Structures are given as structure tokens and as C-alpha cells.
């Protein structure tokens, strides 16, 4: 790697980490296609001082075998819907329905505190970028982390971008 490319990479990383840590993001933002992935959603603040009382996530297309982790003090519910592409669950079973939305409600996460919400899932076999739109309901106000950057734009161009996961080609 040449010096200029190295500096560009470092600059990008620095700018990236300083600019986005106010957003809701995933702890691991890269995973291999087809792998089982543990999504850890990091909630760093409420809505302008108001505590968070509900977190809702919509699953991107192609994500299957979705299992959210229960959380003490929060009521966990899931919405089951039709999958865009049926998937082979093994043992000769083909599933056409699956979890499309996950919600943790009824808790109270003050603005000053930090918490994580966990969902395990199986990633699609094709590499690419997955966007997890997240709605953060607070006692007063709401943050919709649902903006998906248009072509040629980055997450930093948006006020409330969705959480991004880069799906890399499967390990050989």
C-alpha cells in the first residue's frame, strides 16, 4: 500500500468514527455471506434528553432465521411475515415465512446511559450491503434511523442513517 493510499484510508477511518458515533450503529459492521451473524445494536443516547422506551428493527430482505435476544425489563415481540425468497432450513424443510420486525418495548433507557440490543440471524449468500432501519421511540420524540444513502452519498450525508452491515464474500 502506498503512503498516499494509507493516509487516505486513515483519514477516512478517523472522519468516519468521529462523525457517526452519534448514530445507532452495529457493533460488527462486517460479516461473511451465508454466516450466522450476531447483530449488536448500540443505543448511545435518547431523543434530545428524553429516555428511550422502545426499539424497533425491520429485517433487510434476504436475512433469515432471525432470533432476537430477550432483555430483562423489555417486552420482546416479533412480527412474522412472508419472506421475499423462501429458504432451505435444512432437514428438507423450506420456510416461506419468517421474522420481519423485532421490537423491544416497555423499558426505559435514560439519555445518559448506553445499552445494546441483540439479534442473531443468518445472512444471505450474496455479498453486498444490508441496511437495518431502526425506529427509536422516546418518551418525548422519536428518532427514525431509516435513511438509506442514495448512490454516490455516504451515511454522513444523512441525519438519521439506517445501520449498515457489509456482507463480504464467504470465506473459502
Amino acid at each position, binding site marked *: 500500500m502506498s503512503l498516499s493510499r494509507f493516509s487516505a484510508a486513515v483519514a477516512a477511518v478517523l472522519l468516519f468514527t*468521529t462523525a457517526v458515533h*452519534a448514530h445507532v450503529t452495529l457493533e460488527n459492521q462486517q460479516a461473511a455471506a451465508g454466516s450466522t451473524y450476531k447483530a449488536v445494536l448500540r443505543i448511545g443516547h435518547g431523543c434530545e434528553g428524553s429516555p428511550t422506551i422502545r426499539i*424497533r428493527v425491520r429485517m433487510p430482505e434476504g436475512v433469515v432465521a432471525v432470533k432476537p435476544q430477550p432483555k430483562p425489563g423489555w417486552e420482546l415481540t416479533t412480527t412474522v411475515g412472508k419472506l421475499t425468497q423462501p429458504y432451505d432450513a435444512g432437514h428438507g424443510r423450506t420456510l416461506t415465512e419468517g421474522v420481519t420486525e423485532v421490537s423491544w418495548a416497555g423499558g426505559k433507557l435514560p439519555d445518559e446511559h448506553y445499552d445494546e440490543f441483540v439479534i442473531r440471524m443468518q445472512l444471505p449468500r450474496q455479498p453486498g450491503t444490508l441496511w437495518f432501519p431502526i*425506529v427509536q421511540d422516546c418518551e418525548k420524540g422519536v428518532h*427514525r434511523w*431509516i435513511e438509506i444513502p442514495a448512490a454516490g452519498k455516504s451515511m454522513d450525508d444523512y441525519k438519521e442513517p439506517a445501520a449498515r452491515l457489509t456482507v463480504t464474500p464467504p470465506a473459502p
Partner: protein
Amino acid sequence: MLRFLLIVACVLAAFLPAGGPAWAHAILVDTQPADGASLSVAPSEIVLRFNEPVSPVALRVLDAGGGDRAAALPRSQDNEIRLALPALPDGGYIVSWRVVSADSHPIGGGFVFTIGTGASPGAYTPDDARREAAWTAFVIADRLILYIALMFASGGTLFSFFVLRPLRVEVAAFATWRRRAAVLALAAAILAIGLKGGQLGALPASGLIDPAAWTLGLATSTARSAAIIVAGLLLLLVAARAGRARAWLEAGGALVALAGLSATGHAATGARWLQALAVLHALCAGFWLGAFWPLLRLMPAHPAAMLAAARRFSSLAMPAVLVLAASGVIMALTRLGEWSDLVVSAYGQLLLCKLLFVGPLLIVAAANRWQATPAFVAGRHHASSDLARNVRLEIALGFLVLALTALLAHTPPPGVAIDHDHARAMTGHTVWASQRNRTLLLEVTPAAPGANAVTARFATEAGETLAPLEARVSFARPEAGIEPITRPLARGADGVFRLERIDLNLPGAWNVRVEALIDDFERAAFETEIPLSAATRPR
């Protein structure tokens, strides 16, 4: 440059508090005067209050003529930016701001206020309507000249490339004709920009020498289209000196110029696949119609070449005409919501007229394909004069079809599959924009400088009404340095979103962006362009 970036990033990282601010970007909290305020006395200053300290980049106060009234430099103190104002006369003003927040992220926006209670400066007068009608006539005439010149220039080039070149035939006279037509098309394309500006501003007859007309015109899609056409034609003209690659460059320029036609008009605001269809339509029309004249000229002068050319053209024209007809039908269907629109709306009536000439044109073409051309190739008696007569008929019909196409390009279509009665009754400017599989029907009334009302209807592509949770609209003029002026749209009981009033005092084409929260997890953004013309277009 890259090392500089690295240093900037390090400095930024060092200065940001470790935990980071709760918000990455600054937010405008309020303004004085407030957005949409009607003041009886001119304000002495403008105040913008943010949630965190910011530094101003640009702050402009534009009057109805587009002139910047900001005489001093803005001062920033704590979370506020202040701008002292000179004594402002009565009228409407647009304030546009752009600031940099602590994280070095630039943000911008705009708001409006009016002073005094007098009539809106851009009020509609019958004189304006007459002037605009005159400009519209010139716009349409210029468009027709552009079509015809492009058929000769681009169509003729494609005929040479696809038909004559494989036969190793070259006719010097054709090259001269093409050059002249290209120069005419070039002039018509550029003139279209000024004419469009004159139409939007309803300027007096001397408008073409008024720079205002050209500034207004340059901000429209007409200018984008003209730029593409001019680029294609210049390539076509310059290619004549290019030696070996000449034929390929000429054909490339011809294709670019034809494709440029669909960068404006109804096609430019549709979905991607519709835009692609419009390009295809223009290319096939250019190839087919552009061949008539060279064929006619070839007949008496080069009988031997004509034999081979007629046979070759006949086989190439067939798929071109099929694509032309199919793309035309599909585009017409997307613009007409119901069959009754064919009869009821002006657009539908013009479309029927066009079909009235397209039909016979196709019949003559079919007669040529299966009768006149085989007879000519077989060398039958009278076949040559029959074919020549048919081609002359095709040229006449083609001219009428192009004239109606130019008229159609300046007639608003009856709208998408949403509430047709309403669409027909509307008096302002109506556009529809699409994003993925959703459409927005946006109405701005009266689409004149001054107070305007906005109505937005959302639907799926299948025509079912969509009821987003919330929606907002923003108006911007990037070329005039006006940042987006954003307003929420109120949702009515009928599922229609409305904004009672927004004061936009500058004539010309405004970029409009509508954002709708389709459901909890999805926001759709539609972008389109609305011309605010000094005279509203009575229907």
C-alpha cells in the same frame, strides 16, 4: 491533497470531545423574522438561532427580482447568527443560509417573509397571459424546427452509417445537407433555452436580448437537453475531419443528439425505465424518419445504389418501427390514467390527432415494405415512381406527426392514476414524480411568483392511494444560491397532503423535493421541478 486530508481529520478528531456530541449536525432552532411571517414594518436584522455554535458560510436575502439585499457580513455569536439589514421596501423576501457546524458538516436552508400588505409582486395580469402564450407558440415552433433539423442531421447520418456505409456508397451532397441541418439544429437547441426563459418570466418581446430570460432558461431541463444535443451535434460536425474513425464518431454524435431530446419534457420526470423508453423512441424515430429524404434523393441519382439501399433499409426499418410504435404506446398508456382521458383531456385529444397521422404513416410504410420495395427491387414498370410517391407521402405525414409531437411536449398530461377529476380541475402546475414503485402527483397553485399552495397525492404504481404517516416539501434554487425552504405538509382526512401557503417570489424553475414517511421504517424522497411563471397558464 491526501496528506492534507489526513491532517484535517486528525485535528478534527483531537478537538471533538471523546464521547461525541449527542447530535452530529447542528439544527436550526428558530429565526427572526419567523418563516412565513407577514410584517407591517421592515425588520432591522435577521437572526438565526441554532442548537450549537456555528459559523456562517453564506447568508443571502433575496428580493422578488432575485437581487441580494444583504449589505453587511453576518456576525456569529454563541449559537446565533445575525445580519443587519438596510431599509427594505415592501415585498416578499427569501432568506437562504448555509453554515458549518462544529463537526465541519455544512448544513443549509431557507425561509421566507413578506413586508407590507400590498399585492404579491408577481400578481397575474392578462398582459402576462398574452405574453406567455406568444412565448409558448415560439417555444413549440422552435421545438418543431429542432425535430426536423435533427431528423435530417442525425437521421441522415444514421442512414449513411447503417445503410450506405455497408454498401460502400458515399454521396457527397448528403454530407453537405447533414452539416447544414446540424447547424440549424444547434441554433434551435440553444434558442430553446432563451425562449423557455422568456416563457417562464412572461417577459416582453425584447426578452431574448434580456439576460434574465437566459438565466431563467438555464435553470430548466430545457438547458440540460440542449447541452446534450449540442454536444452530440458538435461531435457530428467535428467528426467530418476525423479520418478513419469518422463514420463511427458521426453516428455516435447523431445518437447522442437524438437521445438529448428526451432529457426534457414529460419523459425527464418519469421513472428510469420510462426515460430509457423515451430515448429509444427518439432514436428509432430519428433513424426511420431521417431516412426518407436520403432515399428520395438516392432514387434518381444513383439507381444502382438505390436498389441495394432500399432492400437494406427495408429490413432495418421494420424492427425500428416496431420499437417506435411499442415504446410510443407504452409511454402514452403511462401518461393517460383512463381511456376517457383520450377524449376529455387536451393531451389525449392531441394524442388522438397524432395517431390519426401515425396510422396512415404505418400503412404507407407497410405498403413500401411488402409491395413497393419488392416491386422496385424486381424492376417492375412504374415501381420507381410508386416508391417515390410513397416516400413523399411519408415525409408529409412525418412532418405532421412531428408537429403534433412538439405540441404534445408542451401539453401537460392528465396525470397518473390518481383522482382524475381533480387533476383536470387544477389550475396550477402539476407534475408527477416517481421513486421506485411509487408515484407522487404534486400540484402547485397558481405556480406563479408569490403565494402558492401545494397539494401532494401519493400512490403505488398500480394506482392505489398511499397514505404516508407524514410528509414534507422543500423548494430550492441551487443555481440562484437558494437553499431548500422546507415546510411540513398537513394530512387531510381524504389522505391528501396540503400546504396552504408558501411565498416563493422568484420566477423560474424551482427544484422541489417531497419526502414522505411511507411507514415506520421507510422514507421515500421524490424530486421534480416546478416552473413558477409570471403568468399562470389558464386551462
